[in-house]
């Protein structure tokens, strides 16, 4: 090839071009995935994530990991298997948390005046780190699904416990026993969460007494394994570079 057929003038320019593309690609990937992931998460697990009085020991612990392991599995399927980049899960969760924190502060607090200690998002980083670490060390989709997926479900409640514990202490209010989080909910009435819809702390899981959260976390981890497998293959499909003919569309 002659020099005129080259896209760049020198190796230095090639390196510079390559790195500039890296940044532009990462920026776009981060924000597009953030958008898709956030709309998915807010509409499948959002209410449990929005309000502390929804952050119970049963459904929040069960639902949040199951619906949030989706995009990390899909993005890992592209970033690891094509580029050996071991941060697919963490980059997804960082995007989601950025979108959520900006919203909780500027809109939940800034527009509708719910206090931030009532609307802070769930913590998902510990599970994401484990997902990426298992994939990096094991290099196996199956191992990541089984070990990482289970850990993702199991770690969710302990990861959130330091923030939630103070809000789960019992208080007596007008002769009723409730948690501080419940009390927040009573004071901040919302259109979609009247008492007859809210299902905090009901159900036969109470049969296990204090073990509600571990049982829920274990079940969540089990389903997270299955969801990881499923979304890994979704991710592979979304990462495909296929072209179709105009006639086929």
């Amino acid at each position, binding site marked *: 090839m002659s020099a005129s057929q080259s896209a760049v003038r020198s190796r230095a320019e090639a390196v510079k071009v390559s790195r500039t593309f890296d940044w532009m*690609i990462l920026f776009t990937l981060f924000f597009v995935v953030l958008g898709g992931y956030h709309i998915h998460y807010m509409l499948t697990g959002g209410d449990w994530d929005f309000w502390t009085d929804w952050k119970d020991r049963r459904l929040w612990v069960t639902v949040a990991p199951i619906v949030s392991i989706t995009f990390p599995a899909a993005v890992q399927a592209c970033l690891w298997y094509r580029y050996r980049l071991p941060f697919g899960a963490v980059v997804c969760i960082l995007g989601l948390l950025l979108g959520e924190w900006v919203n909780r502060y500027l809109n939940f607090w800034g527009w509708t005046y719910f206090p931030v200690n009532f609307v802070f998002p769930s913590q998902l980083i510990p599970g994401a780190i484990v997902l990426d670490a298992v994939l990096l060390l094991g290099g196996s989709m199956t191992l990541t699904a089984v070990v990482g997926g289970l850990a993702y479900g199991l770690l969710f409640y302990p990861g959130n416990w330091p923030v939630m514990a103070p809000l789960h202490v019992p208080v007596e209010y007008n002769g009723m026993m409730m948690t501080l989080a419940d009390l927040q909910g009573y004071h901040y009435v919302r259109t979609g969460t009247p008492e007859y819809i809210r299902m905090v702390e009901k159900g036969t899981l109470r049969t296990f007494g204090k073990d509600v959260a571990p049982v829920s976390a274990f079940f969540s981890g089990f389903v997270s394994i299955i969801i990881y497998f499923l979304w890994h293959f979704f991710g592979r499909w979304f990462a495909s570079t296929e072209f179709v003919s105009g006639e086929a569309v």
Partner: protein
Amino acid sequence: MAATTEQVKADAHEAPLLNKQNMFAGAALYIVFYGWVRWYEGVYGWSAGLDSFAPEFETYWMNFLYIEMVVEVMTASILWGYIWKSRDRKVMSITPREELRRHFTHWIWLVMYGIAIYYGASYFTEQDGTWHQTIVRDTDFTPSHVIEFYLSYPIYIITGVAAFLYAKTRLPTYQNGLPLQYMVSVIGPFMILPNVGLNEWGHTFWFMEELFVAPLHYGFVFFGWAALGVLGVVNIEVGAISKLLKKDLA
């Protein structure tokens, strides 16, 4: 490394490979515009957006809706029309350097798509949740809907389709058919807008307030997944750019 610290010489008369001015000006346009929109919501949401039968609602919100719809249709027609009309009819004959320059311009469009998707799917969609958990709706065109559905969604659709059209009309990479995941990543999020029809029908039919995880909203979820098509776009682009730089990076 010597290779990375060596000064890059550019031809003084040549257009830059990446027009950074355009990129930062484009990003600033979205950020400043949406900053103003958020200010407008903060002021006129509470003062004029609580009762759709009030005259001030017509003034501040319905007129906003009518104006934005006209402007969006005009912007889409002019922008998409211009990109198509000015297409390169000899796209397979461009030099590798010109191709690289066009990839950069294409990525400016994709960066804008990232910003537009963020505001539409993340910022204004979750914002809608808190507004409707606070204010009981009496119309489909609530202040948050006027912004979310009828402003931020059309804006990312206009941006996404513009990026797709740019790639299709100016880059050799996209001349061998239609890139499936590119279409998924643009048409999928576009389908969120028609899905508003289902959403409004359901809210009207059941008068359910804003329980965000209600199955009525799952249409948005399904089409939101399509954003992952960006992975395929990245892979196509990485392949094309690597091909252009391969021998120089070897």
